[in-house]
């Protein structure tokens, strides 16, 4: 009854507003742009639910589930989240089309976690022309933190370049007479890592004795690994997505090649990389982490991991508990929640960007201890810290300090 009379009132009020074409905010309690109201916040998203990158689609699904949980708990400042997510199949033109539908037809307040570097590149200029936030994009490319040129776009995860620099510095500090072999995926993701890695090596870039690219369409990377082994390298930097990273680790072990191994964060999962590669082959591999690995026993009893498992049991009972993408989706959706809470009753696009660029040492669940979100009007890289870790037994042993690289925010 209360509900329906309220709706009637709202309908009447908006009709009145339309009729006299006056300022439409007579009965509202906040300041809104398109896509927000007293009762709802409309958020748009694209994810590859089909196509070659569909494994990442679970990120979209877990964000959706997280927002369902928020709505069940009463919403954000009393407003329910309406999460509209479309399949773009990882195809840039499809992304443009879907995003234009979201902005022009569905009239979302903002775009959140659109996935993939090529899809986000395709909509980058459009979003900034339309002045609609493109927040916390799901790609680690280093180009998203450009507040001057693209003030409506912001990244999320530590960018590949920074991570590459961190490995380079660690190698220079710890390995004597390093001769480095690199396997990398032949696309902007692989090249971003490689670029950062070389930047980190600086004048020692000639310590890279062999670089071997592979394409996502290759069946295996066996040939590349044989080439890399024959170069006589004693350090191996593995810039590959999970399937290929596992193949590479396994093949190196088969060949009896025992370099110091670094694997990129993209393929750090114990469950989907190290175990398939053979956990014995993976001993001692070094990577940089910022999220807790759900398959790592050392986090099993931490409060946030328990909470996440309860959430998974209730909202995504079919979800694979060893897939880190679910952790990622949960963590980033939590950050979105924080930003929207911080906006209070001023749900305008400008204020959302202002709040997103004003996160000071914010803690979100499932990040490693000590890693916090920091942004400012000149720093559009929310996460820039990682911690190095080494596989020991079936889990990671963190070592050293939390690292970040200032050079990456230029």
């Amino acid at each position, binding site marked *: 009854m209360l509900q329906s009379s309220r709706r009637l009132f709202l309908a009447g009020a908006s009709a009145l507003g339309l009729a006299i074409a006056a300022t439409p905010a007579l009965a509202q309690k906040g300041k809104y742009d398109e896509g927000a109201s007293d009762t709802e916040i409309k958020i748009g998203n694209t994810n590859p*639910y089909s196509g070659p990158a569909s494994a990442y689609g679970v990120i979209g699904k877990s964000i959706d589930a997280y927002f369902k949980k928020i709505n069940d708990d009463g919403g954000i400042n009393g407003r329910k989240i309406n999460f509209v997510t479309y*399949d773009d199949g990882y195809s840039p033109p499809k992304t443009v089309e879907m995003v234009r539908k979201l902005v022009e037809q569905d009239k979302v307040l903002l775009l959140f976690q659109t996935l993939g570097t090529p899809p986000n590149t395709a909509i980058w200029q459009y979003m900034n022309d339309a002045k609609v936030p493109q927040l916390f994009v799901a790609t680690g490319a280093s180009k998203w933190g450009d507040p001057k040129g693209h003030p409506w776009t912001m990244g999320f995860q530590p960018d590949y370049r920074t991570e590459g620099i961190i490995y380079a510095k660690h190698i220079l500090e710890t390995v004597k007479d390093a001769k480095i072999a690199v396997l990398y995926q032949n*696309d902007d993701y692989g090249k971003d890592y490689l670029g950062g890695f070389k930047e980190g090596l600086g004048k020692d870039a000639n310590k890279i004795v062999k670089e071997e690219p592979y394409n996502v369409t290759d069946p295996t990377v066996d040939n590349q690994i044989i080439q890399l082994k024959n170069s006589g390298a004693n350090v191996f930097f593995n810039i590959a997505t999970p399937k290929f990273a596992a193949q590479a680790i396994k093949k190196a072990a088969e060949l009896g090649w025992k370099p110091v191994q670094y694997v990129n964060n993209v393929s750090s999962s114990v469950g989907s990389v190290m175990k398939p590669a053979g956990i014995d082959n993976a001993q001692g591999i070094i990577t940089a982490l910022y999220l807790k690995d759900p398959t790592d026993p050392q986090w099993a009893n931490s409060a946030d991991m328990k909470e996440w498992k309860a959430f998974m049991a209730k909202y995504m009972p079919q979800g694979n508990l060893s897939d880190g993408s679910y952790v990622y989706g949960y963590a980033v959706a939590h950050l979105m929640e924080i930003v929207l809470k911080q906006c209070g009753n001023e749900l305008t696009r400008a204020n959302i960007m202002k709040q997103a660029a004003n996160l000071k040492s914010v803690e979100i669940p499932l990040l490693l201890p000590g890693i916090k979100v920091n942004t400012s009007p000149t720093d559009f890289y929310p996460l820039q810290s990682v911690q190095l870790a080494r596989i020991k037994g079936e889990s990671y042993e963190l070592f050293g300090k939390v690292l970040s690289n200032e050079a990456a925010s230029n």
Partner: protein
Amino acid sequence: MATTTTTANGVTRKQTSRFGAGFSRNVWLLLIALALLPVVVALLPLVGGPAEVISSYTFLQLSLMIVYSIAVLGLNLLTGFNGQISLGHGAFFAAGAYVAAALVAHHHWPHMVTLPVVALFCFVLGYLFGLPALRLEGHYLALATFSLAIAVPQILKYRHLEGVTGGVQGLNLPKIVAPWGLPFTPDQWMYLLVLVVAVPIFWFTRNLLDSRTGRALMAIRDQPMAAATMGINISQYKAITFGLSAMITGIAGALHAGMFRFVAPDSYPLELSITFLVGMVVGGLASLPGAIFGGIFVQVIEKYADSIARSLSSTLHLPIDIEPWTIYGIALILLVYLMPTGIAGGIARLRRLMNNTGRRSGTS
């Protein structure tokens, strides 16, 4: 328009050669009217009318339908009218897009000025590919073109071509805006441009098929041996048709690139070629209106499949997720089952049925 002919062996059959004959003038007029309606709306601002009667997004959709219609037309010319199967027309689409994009991005050409170059490039590319493909027939040709579709995204990523193609990063293009301060939104302007390109292409194809050359193409499809006996140079005709087909699809690709202001290898996956093939079959083989229906189908089906899958999952509370591709597949099976000659053929059949029942009730 439909003429009944009696062939040598005494079998009477409806001639369906010309651009889907049996297709009355009314349907053509309807299609033209439908295409022109948005033009009228787009022209409203010129006379001081409201600018956004049809939303920009709708204009994008309409432009896309036309672009896909052109692409399907190119394929239809080759497969429907000349009987050569291609599973790789996405490759020519990509080639057209990249030629236009490279000229715009590296040499700052206006987008529309690139179209003649695109046409020439794709014609030559198609012709050259058509030459060796002549030795292949049926399934083998289909496989050869299929490999082309697989190879193109890889070629675009090739290291030594990166200077031209932009590699995996692709190329960003400037926005196409109406010149001389004309009061069109970019989407309205794009729609007008696309239409202005599409109409002569369809007109050209229609006249081509209605000519001596067109009859030769269809003769090669139906009775290659008889065609050769009649003095038709089969290999020349086949290679030229391949060239023309690639040219038309390439122009569609160039327009598509202009619309999205971005090209990348990921934009032209294998599925694109299959999509064109599906559009052609669903629209109607060997039919010009069929190409238009095919283009509309390609653009519409995926959107609807997605939203239908979504609403089914949420209203029925099914224990499993319904994937959009399931809906797509069901729609495809139903269409092919109910209209084996495509939408164009289905409409023609429906009209015949209606005419027959009308006549019957008139005489009784």
